[in-house]
């Protein structure tokens, strides 16, 4: 093995992020969700950064949001004789097949549980969603006294559990702050509930959110107190552009999940962008890597599940969270 060349800590003391765990000589396969998703790229970058500091060699693969590709990647990792797997793919349904292939190697699954074999690490999707909804609700209460005409979500209907959990959570979080409205029961996933003020839109990327968002605005000409809840920043960016272009700025409050840098400017400058629930994907590595070393050494992870702490990023706290951006 060539090992993790040029590690930051060879021989010397390990940096603090490693929590005292040295992964020298260990090879870990990391299959990423899909490198076309900005969030996933940040997860990878973070894991690579910490792994290098802790002397773990990371082998990368891209699941490309394709379940079949995810299986192929596990097979390739096994052939390469990796010591452990970090699996980031959103389809809970194929967890079993993945676990079978992984054998008795330790597995950490990111953002969705792989029940049979893996330690869960990542977002509390439901909880994060509730935080997003509540954040939007607080602003709505302040601006409009919760007098809402409509709620619209931008999400990926076919992107599996995380999307559903985050948006169901967001609706629930909003309801907690602004309770006296007709939301309808979305607990078992549904696209529409009769009589609900919620419209769920299948658009988790910028362009579709822009186009469908504009169409939605056209179909709701009288709605001037609207809350928009987004699966990610890309979607909220698209709808935000649509709102401005339709000349309806000030009629919509935005809140998103993720906290990608692309929305930081809006959070700072637009009083109607309530904020974003930070998932801090760049920090996933700090939980994944040390715990994975523990598991490869036969120890238990520091916690199971390994949950990220979420923060609702607003104009008020963003400069504290990202001081370097100022």
């Amino acid at each position, binding site marked *: 093995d060539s090992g993790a060349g040029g590690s930051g800590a060879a021989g010397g003391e390990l940096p603090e992020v490693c929590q005292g765990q040295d992964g020298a000589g260990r090879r870990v396969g990391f299959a990423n969700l899909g490198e076309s998703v900005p969030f996933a*790229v940040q997860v990878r970058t973070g894991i690579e950064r910490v792994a290098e500091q802790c002397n773990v060699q990371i082998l990368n693969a891209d699941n490309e949001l394709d379940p079949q590709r995810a299986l192929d990647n596990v097979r390739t990792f096994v052939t390469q004789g990796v010591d452990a797997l970090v699996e980031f793919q959103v389809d809970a349904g194929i967890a079993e097949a993945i676990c079978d292939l992984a054998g008795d190697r330790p597995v950490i699954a990111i953002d969705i549980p792989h029940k049979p074999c893996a330690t869960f690490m990542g977002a509390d999707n439901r909880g994060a969603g509730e935080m997003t909804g509540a954040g939007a609700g607080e602003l709505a209460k302040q601006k409009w006294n919760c007098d809402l005409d409509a709620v619209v979500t931008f999400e990926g209907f076919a992107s599996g559990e995380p999307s559903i959990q985050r948006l169901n959570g967001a609706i629930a979080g909003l309801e907690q702050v602004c309770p006296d409205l007709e939301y309808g029961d979305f607990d078992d996933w549904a696209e*529409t509930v009769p009589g609900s003020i919620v419209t769920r839109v299948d658009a988790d990327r*910028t*362009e579709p959110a822009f186009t469908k968002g504009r169409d939605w605005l056209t179909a709701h000409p009288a709605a001037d107190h609207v809350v928009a809840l987004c699966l990610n920043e890309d979607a909220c960016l*698209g709808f935000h*552009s649509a709102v401005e272009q339709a000349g309806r700025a000030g009629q919509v409050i935005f809140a998103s999940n993720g906290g*990608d840098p*692309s929305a930081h400017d809006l959070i700072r400058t637009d009083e109607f962008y309530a904020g974003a629930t930070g998932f801090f994907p760049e920090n996933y590595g700090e939980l994944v890597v040390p715990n994975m070393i523990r598991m490869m050494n036969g120890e238990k992870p520091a916690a199971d599940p390994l949950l990220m702490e979420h923060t609702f990023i607003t104009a008020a706290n963003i400069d504290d969270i990202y001081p370097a951006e100022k």
Partner: protein
Amino acid sequence: MATVMSNEHTDEAPPRRRAPALPTQLLLGLFLVALVVYFSVSSPYFLSVDNFRNILLSVAVLGVVAVPATLLMVSANVDLSVGSAAAFCGMLFAVVAEDHGLALGVAAALAGGLLAGAVNGGLVALIGINSIITTLGMLSVLRGATKLVSNGQTVGIDGFRGLGSGSLAGVPTPVWIFALVAAAFVVLMRYTAFGRGIYALGANPHAARLVGIRPAPNLFALFVISGGLAALAGLILTSQLRAATPLSAEGLELSVVAAVLLGGASLTGGRGTVVGTLVGVLILGTLNNGLTILNVTSFWQEVARGGVLILAVGLDQLRRLRRD
């Protein structure tokens, strides 16, 4: 001596029962009208100046690349890399503009698009590689390059709203651009030696060569034009969304192919018109808009979109079958 027959046979042809031929484009136009009527009756929000502006705005980007794609298809080629090229150029613009200002950003985007087009053109026109394979390859190359440029992140950009969000005389700038491109191509394809040469090349490349039309430079120019307009589309998109994302314009190529084929062009070349493509583009845009406004659930929207696509082309075909 042989029997020489008199010519006094009845001059009348036997009675014909056929309807006069309705041109494909007109039928397609009627189909579009039918869609509009249907949606107008079904929703109070559909039939409004505002909403037509929405529809036009939503198809402007598609239109800017579908129009040159028509001429490409007349030449029996396709450019499947337009979506990736638009995304790549949009990202180039955002990244360069961030550090070096808007003007340089725009220049970089246009240069990128023309270069991508020149690569496609070089491979297809000079080396002779099949255009589907070439541009399928470039689709992948440029999408990867887009992500490399921004490390897979969305890049927000400010102060560049005019191209995407401005308007003149009540008509949004992207729609003006789309209209200008379409008008330019109507002239190019009908009234220039270049345009007619492309029709000739598409109809019969060998024969076209024998009348002095040079395939290589003509096709090369066509791909470069397509690349340049993909860059323009990428700029409009970035300006509209105020951000360049690594996934922008994904799948645009399939909409382009659908619109151009809807408009009566054929992949075997020699056939296709800008007007047909315009109607094709509008059918796609109207359908998306109308279904969303009717609040049709997304799964049914997907089914309906496919169905209407088939129906629009099928009607024309059925009519021909009946006539023959």
